[in-house]
């Protein structure tokens, strides 16, 4: 059974105005458990809108969005909040850590909101901190650590709820290439452990880590690539070429 099922999703902004903006025209795809999907496209193609709909931060005007059998359009705002913290993990371009909280408390935040007992939080954090290499910085504050380290904390925050789906929005967008590589390798490891990931990105290098890449243009899925057994390098070139055609108007 699919984890995520999207069919004929439409999203229009300012629907009733004289200039409605059609961000998503007709999007359909499925995600199976354990998949690692990258969504690529130019600015304004509708990537972020799509991610927001999956993230329950926005609602589609038409179409069906099912996550684990739950219709995302049926959720009220408060139910959506609860759903987010129980089933979804988020990673952002600018990390979005709270500077009022220590790194440990930032990671605990979703669990605290879900009223998890302290012991459980501790137990969940230990293996994560080990895997992400954040043991040394766990009791410092976000303002005291580097960007790459902040993103590791953010990943820990996203994973500690053991989400069904990990959503990443340009996770390497604010990082230098070395740190980006480290973070992307972490994603690989996380995915190998069975975590489903959807990542929105501009970067071909980032997308080359995903098993499948969807290209969006003008609110529609334009193309789809599978990595298969290709090497990162070849696959990355293929992605770059596709992006090039996409930009140049396509065939």
């Amino acid at each position, binding site marked *: 059974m699919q984890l995520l099922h999207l069919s004929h999703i439409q999203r229009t902004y300012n629907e009733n105005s004289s200039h409605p903006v059609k961000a998503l025209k007709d999007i359909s795809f499925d995600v199976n458990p354990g998949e690692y999907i990258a969504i690529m496209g130019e600015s304004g193609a509708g990537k972020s809108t799509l991610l*927001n709909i999956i993230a329950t931060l926005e609602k589609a005007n038409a179409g069906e969005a099912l996550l684990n059998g739950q219709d995302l359009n049926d959720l009220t705002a*408060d139910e959506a909040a609860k759903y987010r*913290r129980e089933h979804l993990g988020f990673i952002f371009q600018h990390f979005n850590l709270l500077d009022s909280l220590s790194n440990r408390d930032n990671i605990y935040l979703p669990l605290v909101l879900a009223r998890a007992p302290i012991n459980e*939080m501790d137990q969940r954090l230990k293996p994560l901190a080990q895997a992400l290499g954040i043991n040394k910085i766990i009791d410092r504050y976000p303002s005291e650590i580097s960007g790459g380290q902040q993103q590791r904390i953010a990943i820990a925050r996203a994973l500690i709820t053991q989400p069904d789906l990990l959503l990443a929005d340009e996770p390497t967008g604010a990082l230098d290439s070395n740190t980006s590589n480290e973070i992307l390798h972490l994603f690989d490891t996380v995915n190998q452990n069975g975590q489903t990931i959807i990542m929105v990105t501009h970067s071909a290098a980032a997308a080359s880590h995903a098993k499948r890449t969807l290209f969006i243009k003008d609110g529609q899925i334009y193309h789809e690539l599978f990595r298969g057994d290709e090497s990162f390098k070849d696959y990355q070139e293929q992605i770059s070429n596709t992006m090039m055609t996409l930009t140049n108007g396509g065939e």
Partner: protein
Amino acid sequence: MLYFQLINSSFKRNMRSYGPYLMATIMLVAINYIFIAISANTSLKKLNTGSVTTAMLDLGFKFILLVTLAFLIYVNRFLWQQRSQEMGLYSMLGMTSHNLQLLTIIEKCYLMVISLVTGLIFGIIFEKLAFLGLGYLLNIGHLTQPWFVSSAILKTIIITVSLFVIIMIIDLIKLHRMTPNQLWQPQAASHKQHGVLYTLGGIIGFILLIWAYYITLTIKPRISAISHFMLAVMLLVVGTYLVFIIGSIILLHLLQRNKHFYYQPRHFIAVSGMLQRMEQNGASLATICLLCSSILVILFTSITLYVGIGSTVKSYSPDDVVMVGTQTLTKDQQSTISTVAHHHNAKVNDYVHYQMTVPQYGYWRNNHFINQGTIQKMDNKTSGSVILLTTKEYNKITNQHVHLSGNQALAYANNKGHYGKITVNNQTYHAKKLAHFDQYFNPDHSIYTPLFIVVNKLPQHTPLATVTTFNYQLKGTQKARIKFEQDLQSQLKMNNMAFTGKATITSLINGLYGGLVFIGILISIALAITTTIVIYFKQISEGYADHERFHTMQQVGLSEQETVKSIHSQVLMVFLMPVIGAIINLGFAIPAIRQIMIQLNFYNLPLMLTVGAIVAISLLALYLILYGLTTRTYQQIVDSPVKSIE
């Protein structure tokens, strides 16, 4: 006129900050003008208490001026934070530092002209009203004040311009020191690690507070009470700042260490949020707390004084006229009284005259009264006075037939008093407390109100005084009564100690304390305005800071309902802290103020408590209304469309 366009558009966009800022500067200009104009009034100076009132107004004015300056600098800093990004943008777009300076100067002039013109208009209207109010409080109808007091207008303009010049210079210095890059980039929040010294500071803060409270609780009604109170105030100011800035953070850290408490959604958000807030805002919360405390204490003191005037007058002069001498009135004096009364169409009656010892000053050691002698022998050990009266005289005054045997005695005082087994002049009495004594009074008008003791036999070698009192009926105003009393006093050739007229003393005390109440109220209004604005700006700045935090929390699964809830509980906590601190301060100040009041002959404890409660409740109510209004703005800022993932 690019500059004006830029400034206009900036005003429009930032109305949220400029609006309240202008409102506050306008009101402060108005209050400054009211103070200057009233103290410049000539008819006020002619009153016999006018010089006292003017002196108090001057003192009050200096205080208000300080408040105005402090306020302008505080709010200016806030506006600067908002404007700096804009300035950075202009500078990046190619404005030279010269252009930016000009822009700052024009902006300040703009603000100054608006505050000055509107403030003066309001000031002139309110001053007229305030003057009527002052006349009413002073109980004098014939005060006049022209609509325009040109000297005051000029003085207000000079003061306002110089205040604005000061903040303009501050801004220009800031501008000079900054590079465009700094202007453009907001400062990142950093986390400070605190050392042992820091903890020590917090502990010292608590100790200072406890010390201050200890002083207020143990102040004795002596001349030194006022200086002790001043010491307590200074300790309190330093202590409050330390406790708010450091103590609160230590407390929050302790809460954070209690994991079962801390890791609950509400506490988690509140404690971490507060921790950050207190780091940044401890000082301004302490300022709000102290402002509220001063409002409470000033209002409380002045209202109690004013309401208590009746009892003071009564203790100075239980009947319409009281004369104290060494012997009974002579025939000559009696006929003088009749002649003067006849001349003024006054009908004199209720003659009472009796003998008592002159007030003996000293201090109490347990129930032993250590006698120091007459009022001239008073020193800083003195804490009370005693008047002895024979049973015979007492019966004569009260038309009773009380019989005392042996060392039995009756005693009455308008303060706590001493009863039971007491020793005065080496004589031990068993004093029973009297429920009331109509002729009770304070012949020396001294700060140590006497204990009246009715005994069988007066001790030997104690100087005696003869008291003659009477009432009179006179058709006419209070002024006619004062005239009669003054005429009588000069005809009898008696000094102020020997002769007390009720109408005269009432008008004197009214003038003195009425002026005090008036100044108290004006100062409280000024403080209330500044407090309001300080709170408002705090809310706005925190709203902007919290916007991002709540946004992130919503993304990781905080529902809107929970957001609103935690916003409310957090804001309320921050909001209530200063006002609760202020009410605690008032609570501890009351015993000390009471001791000072006793010196000023105000001693009505139930009255004081009522006034205290009313003042505190009104402040709390006002504060909560303010909270409701500002929280709306805060919530609008925090809730402004949650930007989804970009």
